[in-house]
């Protein structure tokens, strides 16, 4: 590694930054302000021609093979760079399964022989583009919504909240709602459902949602959309479905939990003197957060919850939200790209030599100390 770096010019500071999300992967280079590409986290199986999401693995070996194909595509189709002897920054969710992170490290170090790997927790690095060190971070992605308070550059892990209310849940709900007025919904691919969701649906206002929940709503819904499917088929997307498909985010489940309570519960678990600071520094990221009306509605829901007895002891009067200099779906990536061009890579990155010597990946819980100076 030092020898190679010394020869220089070939490698200088070309650091690939990868954020492998459940639905989409963000890939780019450190020091740049947007990812080069945002692609689906899936690979086409060469033998069967079947497209598989890399999280749908059967076992470690299967995942290894999926990741080998996936990383190959990332480097040779998008980054256009040889991975060997080059550093890489990986953005990782705090809830990333151990098998996934360990297999990914094995693929990068052993199969692609990267020289150095720096793993950064997404909830922490997303604050870098804002230059703040204390915030409540809500990440609404594909499989789950996760809220974690970050205080003085340290994620307060014991306060984390997660619920399976994110993109995937909306897709399921959309399918159910559409079945009532259309036929053959089950045969529609997940990506078409996503397209319908993205182009037709939105998060309605609190007032309208309350009206809808009544037995006889006294409002007119927004207009229905005729969505053309392949060939001559047309789907009818009723106005009510367009408005209310996201309601599952704000309906309390059996444990009385929903998107808004997650944030408040996370704040509750933090020291009293930090609570106001957190409520006035809310960062929302993840592709689902880009839905029209989502942030507005979440704000209203937060104020509504605040009035309930559950949160009376919070003593919060207002919420403030950050708007990062990025699209919500790559805020964490951008943070990683900023960290990636600092010396942190050489200071805290895991080198291939050490990985092969120690045969293990530092647990991210150990990394919190590593990152505390920022």
């Amino acid at each position, binding site marked *: 590694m030092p*020898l190679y770096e010394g020869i220089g010019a070939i490698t200088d500071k070309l650091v690939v930054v990868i954020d492998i999300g459940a639905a989409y992967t963000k890939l780019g280079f450190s020091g740049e302000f*947007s990812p080069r590409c945002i692609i689906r986290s899936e690979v086409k199986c060469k033998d069967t021609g079947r497209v598989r999401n890399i999280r749908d693995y059967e076992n470690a070996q299967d995942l290894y093979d999926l990741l080998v194909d996936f990383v190959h595509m990332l480097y040779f189709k*998008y980054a256009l760079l040889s991975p060997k002897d080059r550093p890489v920054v990986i953005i990782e969710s705090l809830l990333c399964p151990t098998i996934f992170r360990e297999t990914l490290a094995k693929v990068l170090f052993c199969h692609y*022989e990267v020289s150095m790997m720096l793993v950064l927790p997404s909830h922490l690095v997303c604050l870098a583009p804002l230059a703040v060190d204390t915030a409540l971070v809500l990440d609404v992605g594909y499989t789950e919504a996760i809220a974690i308070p970050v205080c003085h550059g340290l994620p307060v892990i014991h306060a984390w909240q997660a619920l399976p209310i994110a993109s995937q849940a909306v897709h399921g709900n959309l399918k159910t709602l559409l079945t009532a007025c259309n036929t053959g919904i089950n045969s529609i691919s997940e990506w078409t459902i996503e397209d319908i969701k993205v*182009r037709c649906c*939105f998060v309605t206002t609190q007032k309208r949602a309350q009206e809808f929940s009544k037995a006889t709503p006294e409002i007119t819904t927004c207009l229905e959309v005729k969505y053309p499917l392949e060939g001559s088929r047309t789907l009818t997307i009723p106005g009510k479905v367009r408005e209310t498909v996201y309601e599952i985010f704000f309906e309390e489940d059996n444990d009385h939990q929903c998107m808004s309570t997650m944030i408040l519960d996370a704040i509750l678990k933090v020291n009293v003197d930090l609570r106001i600071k957190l409520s006035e520094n809310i960062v929302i990221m993840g592709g689902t957060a880009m839905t029209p009306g989502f942030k507005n509605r979440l704000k209203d829901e937060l104020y509504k919850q605040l009035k309930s007895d559950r949160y009376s002891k919070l003593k919060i009067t207002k919420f403030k*939200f950050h708007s990062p200099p990025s699209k919500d779906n790559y805020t964490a990536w951008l943070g990683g790209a900023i960290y990636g061009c600092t010396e942190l890579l050489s200071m805290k990155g895991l080198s291939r030599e050490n990985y092969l010597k120690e045969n293990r*990946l530092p647990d991210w819980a150990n990394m919190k100390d590593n990152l505390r100076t920022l």
Partner: protein
Amino acid sequence: MSYIIGSDVVRYACTCGILKPISKLYFCRHCLEVRCGFCVCHEVDSHFCGKCAENLPSSEARLKKNRCGNCYDCPSCHQQLTTRAATVGPKNPEDPKATPRKVFYLLCLLCRWSSRDVGIPDQSAVSGGWPERENIHANRLQEIQDMYKGIVLLDKQQKLEKDKKKQRRYMSFTDRTGITASMLRKRVGLPDIPHPLLKPKPKEPEPAVAKEDVEELPEELLTKPVNLCEVTTMEQRLVQPEWQPITVEKLFPIHKQLSVKRSQRCRSCEHNVSKPEYNPNSIKFKIQLFACFHIPEVRIVTVEPLRAGKTCELLLKFSNPTQHQTVITFLPVTLEMEETKISEQVTEDKSVVDDYLLEKKQPLSLTGTGSQPSSLLHASLSRQPSITVKPRPIAVPVVADITIPTSTFILPPRDDAAEYDDSGDTHNIQDDSKLVIWRKSNKAVVKLQVTPKEDLKIGDEVVAGFTMQHIYVNTITTVDNKEPQKCEHKVKVFVTLGNLVGSE
């Protein structure tokens, strides 16, 4: 020609344990081993634009963010955009001398999207000078990035300082508490004293300020009908990650992404097994150690109906692709990779990387592969030695036994001229007539006995395997070996014979 259209009824086992048709395998002449796309090291060789076929040096490609400066893709359907010319009237219609001007715009011939649709002004030159968009946050992000660089650098320097102090057995307050002086100062509200040896700290941008207001729900979503043609799809958004336009009038031409030519390198000996020519217009290779040029090819001619426990006849055709005569010997197949030299080296402890080992780059034990060319020695200065993958067990259910013939047979060298010679073969080869039933130039058909296992059910796929040993003539000349070296190479071949049929 079945392998060309991808049917893989005859598969060879790569050294790494993966089964592939011969068309997808490499043969490293230096290690004398089969390699495949999975177990070689891929490298980016050269960047080029797939539309204008311009070759870009990798430094330039990096500067241009891996995109062609002249070619554009359609933001709507992602096909290539064409530059179209239009004539506009003279600026001053009164002036009879004024000639009409030519202007250019971009048009997609597939979906008819045009740069005029989104109000991009027409250009007066063919090559464009099309407007580029800037990230509106770039300045602030640059400041933030510089700040982070500064903080981390400071931290690094302080750590080095601390390490020095430690060596002097000097204890400071910060050492005991474990937080850096700079953090401590910040906490108690003292200004940070810049270290005399450090450059003055860059001006720190203010932290972002959160607001009570958030994006409202656009009112028109509730009242106006949605025209799906005006709302972008997910693909259209994500192909421009920086902007992710929601409506079609915000689409913008996309610089075409470059493609790369790749070379493949054997991970054991660091020699290339495939290297394309640099010129993007050329489809030729500088190095092409494809297995189908070195290893006899096996094809299934015919097989009798397969019945459980019944022996049936299998005809296989062998052809020799090399310029040297070879002798084929059949050996039984074992599914475990008998790489004893590897298993000896691997330690027993259960670790994440026990499947891998760092190959010691010493001259290989195989004869004829001695010293390396000087170009490689040079390359090894910048390359770290590769990690070699420990082979995985072959994952194929072999459910039929092939009776291994005791006799061997000869395959003459390939002679392209003989293909057109109908005058009959003049070969003088003494064949075991029970084994070889037909031969012509470099090809021979052999008859084997195959017995599907007793416990198979009707409809089950029948796979059989054997090890093919052939004489390989290594023509690589080295300093110590001027003469071509003959050696025996073994490769496991698996044939998928079809499905089991009923008993009579």
